[in-house]
């Protein structure tokens, strides 16, 4: 369980977080979504007792992060943006070291390391120096290290940044499996899709403020998550396209880009319906596609047109 109540943090005169509040129920996954510099890592650092907030309170696993840091530390696992491993040691040695730092004896630590290596399919690399690992392997060992003692709350700070698509899917599967074991997970990400796939709830952070919270379904509804983008062959057909999809809400026309955007709450079903109508009336198309809004578009949507520059 994570409770964040009005946390602010300033570095000198620079406010990094302003009045951030959210909560994550036990056993659920919360995605903290935002750009670089939005304050995601600062939130993780405060919750993992690395930073003391300037104002506000926060509880992790029932313990206050400022008043009871030792209890918090005993309840959490943290995987940061950069691999927090000793690169000169092997994967196994790193696991054994952290197991011993969590109070296990030598033999117990070795057993636990072997268990995690098997679980993470890293037998082939376990006895090589971490510095020779690929990004994906390093991340897996890194996550394994934060699980040497099963944590109540796990922080994953941008767990898939810099990973190739396959390793990214591996990490996703891992997070899903953890959530199924009643671990509370707070993960930060810049990718909307990632937050969408993995999280039960999403907190969107922008310039140190929470600008939206809710389940991924809530946010999708509020933001019209995907939309169907139609590009007719002849620009003069734009108005015909608009007329054909006129019954959909919030259709947008971009005459410069020669496209019509139709919100697609039902995803592919909306796309095929639009395509059927256009086909029947014989509008020729260059392109029709289903698009998800970029994080920028979501932010624009949430922060309103006043912030567009």
């Amino acid at each position, binding site marked *: 369980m994570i409770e964040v109540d009005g946390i602010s943090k300033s570095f000198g005169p620079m406010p990094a977080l302003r009045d951030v509040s959210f909560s994550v129920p036990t056993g659920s996954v919360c995605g903290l979504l935002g750009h670089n510099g939005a304050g995601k890592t600062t939130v993780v650092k405060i919750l*993992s*007792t*690395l*930073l*003391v907030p300037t104002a506000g309170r926060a509880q992790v696993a029932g313990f206050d992060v400022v008043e009871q840091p*030792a209890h918090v*530390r*005993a309840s*959490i696992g*943290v995987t*940061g*943006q*950069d*691999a*927090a*491993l*000793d690169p*000169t*040691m092997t994967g196994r*040695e790193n696991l054994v*070291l*952290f197991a*011993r*730092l*969590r*109070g296990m*004896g030598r033999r117990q630590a070795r057993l636990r390391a072997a268990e995690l290596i098997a679980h993470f399919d890293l037998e082939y690399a376990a006895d090589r120096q971490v510095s020779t690992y690929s990004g994906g392997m390093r991340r897996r060992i890194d996550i394994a*290290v934060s699980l040497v003692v099963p944590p109540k709350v796990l922080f994953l700070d941008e767990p898939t940044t810099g990973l190739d698509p396959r390793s990214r899917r591996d990490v996703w599967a891992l997070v899903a499996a953890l959530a199924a074991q009643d671990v509370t997970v707070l993960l930060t990400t810049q990718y909307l899709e990632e937050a969408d796939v993995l999280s039960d709830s999403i907190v969107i952070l922008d310039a140190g403020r929470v600008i939206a919270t809710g389940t991924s379904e809530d946010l999708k509804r509020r933001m019209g998550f995907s939309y169907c983008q139609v590009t007719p062959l002849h620009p003069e057909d734009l108005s015909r396209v608009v007329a054909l999809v006129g019954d959909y809400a919030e259709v947008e026309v971009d005459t410069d880009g020669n496209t019509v955007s139709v919100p697609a709450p039902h995803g592919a079903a909306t796309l095929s319906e639009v395509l059927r109508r256009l086909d029947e009336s014989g509008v020729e198309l260059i392109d029709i596609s289903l698009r998800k809004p970029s994080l920028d578009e979501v932010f624009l949507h949430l922060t309103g047109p006043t912030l567009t520059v």
Partner: protein
Amino acid sequence: MTAVLALTERVVRSGYRDQDIAFAVLAPILTFVGFTVALRSVIDTGEMSYPQYVLPAVVVQAMLFGALNTTDRAATEHSSAFGARLRTLPISTYAPLLARILYCLLRGVLALVAAIGVAHFFGFRMDGGFGYGLAFAAMSLTLTLALSLGAEATGARAKRVDTSSQLLLIPQLFLVLLSTGMAPVDSFPGWLQPFVQYQPISQITETLRGFASGHVSGPNLAVSLAWCLGLLVALGALAVRTQQRSDEH
């Protein structure tokens, strides 16, 4: 305690892998042989043989090298994600610091044994006997402890791995060369003699030389002890404060 032990093992292993342990043993051997071969017929140390005279300076030099190495390790760890992860674990804030200090002491013991071993071969003797020999080791290691605590504080503050120890290389070299550890005070120009005579490395090497021969002058011992213990307290406090501060910002 398990944490300190596990972290110390890690530093020892990394010292072994990055050849620092080999350097710890070889550095005093090479400096001793170098100084002795180059200078023993040039510098007049009176009745005392040059190996007997110069050994304490070699030991102090080795302890300074050890401290520089600690600076690098502390700087690396304070700026790394690995170091940050250690601070999210339910272990003492001081465990990583203690581990590096213990390693530095171990390194000091190795350097001491290597230096005395090679010097013995060249005719150096612990004429004072076992008690004085013990005092010799104790003072050398107290100095190592004090210096490595200072190195901790410097490394943690600098956080720039490549520059912090190089910055310190100059003053330590300067202090060793301009001390009575390498040559008696009359071989320095007159205007430099007051500095050479009273700077800490001169005082400490003189005491160590006294321990080795079994004759220590009271006032000199007092000055050396004051330096060693004073540095220990001052640098220790600084290291502890730095570690606390790095916990909060």
